[in-house]
C-alpha cells in the first residue's frame, strides 16, 4: 500500500477537500482554457489574468478525480504572483516530473512537489496534468 499512500498525500487530500481559487469569473481580461477528458469524465477550466507579464490571478473550476482537482487547486495557488516565464518553467518541470521524464530537480515546485507520487501510476499522469496543460494554454 505504500504506493497508494504515496499518491494520496495529505496535502493533496487537503486541497481536494478545500479547493483554492475555485469558481470562474466573467471577465474578458482573463484568458480561459477548458480541457475535457472524455474517457474518465474529467472536465477542468483554468483562467489566468496576466498583467505586465505577471500572473495576477488564476482560477479553476470543474470536476474529476481527487488528483485532478487537487492539482488544479495547487496550481492556482502556486502560480499567482509569478511571471509568465517563471510560471511556464515551473509548469514544464511539473509536467515532466509527473510523467516521469527528466526535470530540473533543483527547481522549487513548492507544494506541487507532493504530486511526485503520481510517477508510480502511469495511468494517473493525465489526472495530474490536465489542469496544468490547460493553464499553459491560457498563457499562449
Amino acid at each position, binding site marked *: *500500500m505504500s*504506493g*497508494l499512500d504515496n*499518491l*494520496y498525500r495529505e496535502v493533496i*487530500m487537503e486541497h481536494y*477537500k478545500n479547493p483554492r481559487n475555485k469558481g470562474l469569473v466573467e471577465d474578458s481580461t482573463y484568458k480561459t482554457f477548458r480541457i475535457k477528458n*472524455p*474517457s*474518465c*469524465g*474529467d*472536465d477542468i477550466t483554468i483562467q489566468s489574468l496576466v498583467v505586465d507579464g505577471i500572473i495576477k490571478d488564476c482560477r479553476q473550476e470543474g*470536476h*474529476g*478525480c*481527487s*488528483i*485532478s482537482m487537487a492539482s488544479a487547486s495547487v496550481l492556482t495557488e502556486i502560480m499567482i504572483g509569478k511571471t509568465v516565464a517563471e510560471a511556464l518553467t515551473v509548469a514544464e518541470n511539473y509536467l515532466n516530473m509527473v510523467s516521469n521524464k527528466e526535470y530540473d530537480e533543483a527547481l522549487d515546485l513548492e507544494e506541487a512537489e507532493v504530486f511526485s507520487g503520481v510517477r508510480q*501510476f502511469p*495511468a*494517473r499522469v493525465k*489526472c495530474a496534468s490536465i489542469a496544468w496543460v490547460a493553464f499553459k494554454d491560457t498563457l499562449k
Partner: protein
Amino acid sequence: MMNNPWVNDFPQLKNGMIYFDTAATSLKPQAVIDMVDHYYKDLSANIHRGMYEAAVEATTLYEETRETVARFIQADSEEVIYTRGTTSGLNLVAFSYGLNQLKEGDEIIVSELEHHSSFLPWQAVAKKIGAVLKFVPLDEEGRITIAAFQSVLTERTKIVALTYVSNVMGFITPIQEIISLAHEVGAIVVVDAAQAIQHLDINVKELDCDFLAFSGHKMLGPTGIGILYGKAEHLKIMEPFEYGGDMNEDVEKDLSTWKQYPQKFEAGTMPIASVIGLKTAVEYIQNIGLETISDHIEKVHRYAIAQISQIRDVSIYNKSSETGIIAFNLENVPSHDAITFFAEHNIAIRAGQHCAKLICDWLGIHSCLRASIYLYNTYKDVDYFTQVIKQAVAYFKELGF
C-alpha cells in the same frame, strides 16, 4: 463450488490477475492465440490471389471463417462482411446505407444507452442530411421498453439504431419485438451486438434485423476484426464504403464496377490473421455452448450482486442486469480514484464513461466503475473482489473522501 474448467485455457490468467474487464475486451484462449501464430509462422500469404500452398490454405481458412460466423448467427455467408470492428461496421451502415437512403426530415431512433460507436455515426449522418434523431425514453431502471419505443416510432422513422445489450447497464433490449414494429412502418433496424454476441444465441433470420455488428476482440477473438451482417437486399443496393484492391470487378480509367457483396465492402488486404483467429474463437464458444456460458455468468453475477450490494457506501446502478455487467461507484469516491485501488490489488475493472456518456448523463453521474463477468470468472474471484471493495471503501473513507 465447482472448479471453473475454462480458466486454464486462458494463459493471461496464469499471472494471478482477476479479470473483470471483458466488456472492454475479452481474454483470448490459447487455441485462438495458436491459430494467429499458425498464420504468421506457416501461412503468411496474401489471400485470394496466390496459388502456392500457404496462400491456398490461408484463403481456405479465411473463407471458412465466413461460413463459421454465418452459421453462428444463422446468416448466409455472403451476408457476412469483415470489418475492423463494431465501430467500422456501424459506420459502414451509416455512411453507405444511411447517407444515401435518408432525406431531410426522416427520423432515426437511437437511445441514451448507445455506445458512442452506435450513436455518433447517426448523429453525423443526421446532421449532414437534416434528419431527426429521436431518443427512446428509458424507463426508471434505464431500460428500453417496447412501449417506450412505440412512443417515438412514427411513419417518418427510417432507421432504428439500438444496442442489443448495453455496455454499461448490461440490459438486454427487447430487440425482436422492436424490429417487427419498426418493419411495420418500413424502418430498418441496425443492431449493435458488440455486447450481445458473446452472451446470446443470435439468429439473424429469426430476429429479422437488417444489420448487426460485433467485434472479435470482445468474443475471445483477435483485435482488428469485426463482423457486419447485412440483409442481402440492402447489401445489393449499397455503394462501397472504401475503394481499392480486391473489391472491384472491372477497372477502367473512367468507370469501374464492383464485385458482389460481401467482397465489394472489403477493400484492400483484410486483417487476415485476425479473421482466421476469429474462426477459432467462434468454435471455442460453440464447443462450450452459449447456454452454458450464460448460465455460468448468471450464477457468478447473481453471487456477486448478493455480496456487493451488502457493502455500505457502494451504489450499484444496474442490479437487475442480465449479462454480468456491474456498474457501480464507491460513494463520494471519483471512479478514477477508486480504480487505482483495484489496479493495485491486481483486479482489472474499468472506470470512466465507457464510451457511453449519454447514459452517465442519464444516471446523473460523471463516471462509474464497471466490472464485467465472463466465462473465466469464478466465485473465488468474486470473493476476493468483494473483500477488496470493502478495503477500498475503508481506505478512501479514512483518507477523507
